[in-house]
């Protein structure tokens, strides 16, 4: 194995361990979040984002790492995002959690995984068509929130933190 692969594997094992400990891999948790009955996934994801954004922004500000925004392509994000949401609700797993769910014994995830591999193959076949239609609509490029508002990310982060912490307090009060 190359250093890349070893690094990926170690990171993946830790990621899978934490996803399982947070109990976010299960169909019940994923669909529970979409039915707004169980906020576990929101708590988990938003906590990861709160912590991650501070460290990543610090490292990026110090020019130790570089950011890698994904393109803000209107058609791609709106249509792709909607398609994902539809499939996600039926499948009850997202790509990363399907593999983890299989690891904790929820073996029906194999059907979801097979479907996703098939979906990737279909997408590869249809890519030229999407490229000239949905993906050609409007591409704003790889942009960050701080750049479009032309302010420091250190002004956005505290506001984000305050909003999410307020949300967490509300979840706990409502015992969601």
């Amino acid at each position: 194995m190359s250093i890349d692969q070893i690094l990926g594997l170690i990171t993946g094992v830790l990621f899978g361990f934490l996803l399982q400990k947070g109990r976010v891999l299960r169909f019940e948790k994923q669909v529970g979040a979409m039915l707004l009955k169980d906020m576990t996934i929101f708590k988990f994801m938003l906590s990861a984002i709160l912590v991650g954004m501070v460290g990543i922004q610090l490292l990026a500000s110090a020019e130790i790492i570089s950011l890698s925004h994904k393109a803000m392509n209107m058609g791609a994000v709106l249509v792709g995002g909607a398609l994902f949401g539809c499939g996600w609700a039926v499948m009850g797993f997202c790509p990363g959690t399907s593999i983890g769910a299989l690891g904790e014994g929820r073996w029906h995830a194999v059907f979801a995984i097979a479907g996703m591999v098939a979906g990737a193959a279909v997408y590869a076949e249809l890519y030229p068509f999407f490229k000239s239609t949905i993906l050609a609509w409007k591409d704003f490029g790889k942009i960050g929130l701080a750049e479009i508002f032309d302010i420091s990310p250190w002004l956005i982060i505290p506001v984000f933190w305050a909003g999410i912490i307020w949300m967490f307090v509300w979840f706990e009060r409502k015992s969601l």
Partner: protein
Amino acid sequence: MKLKTEDGGWSPYLAGALVGVLAIVSVYATTQWMGKPNYLGASTTFVRAAGLLERTVFPERVAANEYFTKEKVRVDWQFMLVIGIFFGALISSKTDRSFKLESVPPTWKERFGPSIGKRAAGAFLGGIVAMMGARMADGCPSGHGLSGMMQLSVSAFIALAMFFGTGIVVAGLLYRRRSS
């Protein structure tokens, strides 16, 4: 705020925060050892897996495909990360005894019955649609939802809102039985 859940899991706030730490360390480590930052993600691996499988039957078709060429069909950092997720979840669930063989999840069973065939068809078809969407949007709840949000990417905010917005509507239609 409890640090443990009733079934021996960790508080989602704690486990999530640790994923945040892992994401930071991972970006730093990949920058140091691989020369470029790699952010957590999962869905591109499904493209590579599809390419690897398809290549065993139609090698020239995969070689000629624009999308496979763009995403490069190989076992890379993210591919191993996705394999690692399986082992991480296995280790965690076996050691705290939350490992459980499940063929049909309870919410699904309540709505669509105990048929494994129905569940398999739903998961498979849902998988096709979801992966086409994730590849079109260029990310899933890991790539956009975690990594993109951490970087304050504009695309991540819109993609995540679409993921959950549509998911909430469709899940509501699918699983909420009208009480009549």
